[in-house]
């Protein structure tokens, strides 16, 4: 009985290690989505979110189509373009695409380490969004496929 328990324990451990390893490998491959928003007024909200991109991609597949219908309808004109742009951007080296600096705000859109990074620093808030381009392409393609089915 003891040896059976040991076998079950080892098997469970192996499965756990495999699951964690698979998730770690998938996270490493797909990268992390980072969202940071901070309102500058006293008592303002602060949101800090770091999610493995793979979780978003897998999670999107599980969202019921009815829930996505409205979001997909709103973005339908831009979805194919977003899918192509994010896929194509992976071919390019790191670069700064947009930089706007004024007394009120500073906005930058760059490609850095395979991710599209958007930074906004205005008088009222600071926003930082970093999304791996491969994940962005996958999400856009999934939404585009859902749109075609709706």
């Amino acid at each position, binding site marked *: 009985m003891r040896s059976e328990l040991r076998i079950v324990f080892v098997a469970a451990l192996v499965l756990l290690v495999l699951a964690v390893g698979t998730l770690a490998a998938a996270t490493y491959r797909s990268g992390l989505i980072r969202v940071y928003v901070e309102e500058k007024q006293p008592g303002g909200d602060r949101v800090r979110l770091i999610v493995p991109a793979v979780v978003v991609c897998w999670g999107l597949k599980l969202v019921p189509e009815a829930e996505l219908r409205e979001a997909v309808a709103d973005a339908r004109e*831009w979805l194919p*373009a977003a*899918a*192509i*742009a994010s896929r194509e951007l992976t071919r390019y080296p790191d*670069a700064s695409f*947009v*930089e706007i*600096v004024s*007394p009120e705000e500073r906005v930058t859109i760059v490609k850095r380490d395979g991710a599209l990074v958007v930074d906004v620093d205005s008088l009222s808030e600071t926003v930082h969004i970093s999304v791996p381009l491969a994940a962005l392409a996958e999400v856009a393609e999934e939404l585009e496929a859902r749109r075609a089915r709706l």
Partner: protein
Amino acid sequence: MKKITSVLAVVLLTTAVALAGPEASNERWLHVKIEKSGEKAEFVRVNIPLALAEKVLPAVEAGPLREGRIRIEGTVEGVELRAIFEAVRALKDGEFVTIETENETVRVAKEKGYLIARIHEATGSRDQIDVRVPMVIVEALVSGPGPELNLTAAIRALSEHGDEVLVNIASQDETVRVWVDSKSTME
């Protein structure tokens, strides 16, 4: 044997670099730089790979933009833009508009494969506007069959044309520059 392998490796590597080189240098970027001085100083810098724009544009379907073409309906202040583009394309080199006054000089011409527009103010803000568009771009724009401008074709023509400064605007408090080259940065 080891020496032959090394030489072969060097030859292969050199060939690979030589083959990869021209493609990389052929990648053209459109740059837009706007700088405003004074109390509300600001600047805008945009760098867009033309090949990316060429692929993305046909996928955008918004407003009058469809399949990389923008539909021109009606006229702009009574002027048919497409008719003007087509007329300019058909004309030989020459100066179409020349206005010289105390305050400014305006010149619109077709010259050595370029459509050129220049406005130079002699007084006041001393604005200087120089627009220089290769005719191949104009031809690409009107290459579609209907009342539309073929933006995708124009971008393709621009990327094949080579390095070019398209727009240069300089005034007392603002400068605008639009150009194409093979660098991904503005330096």
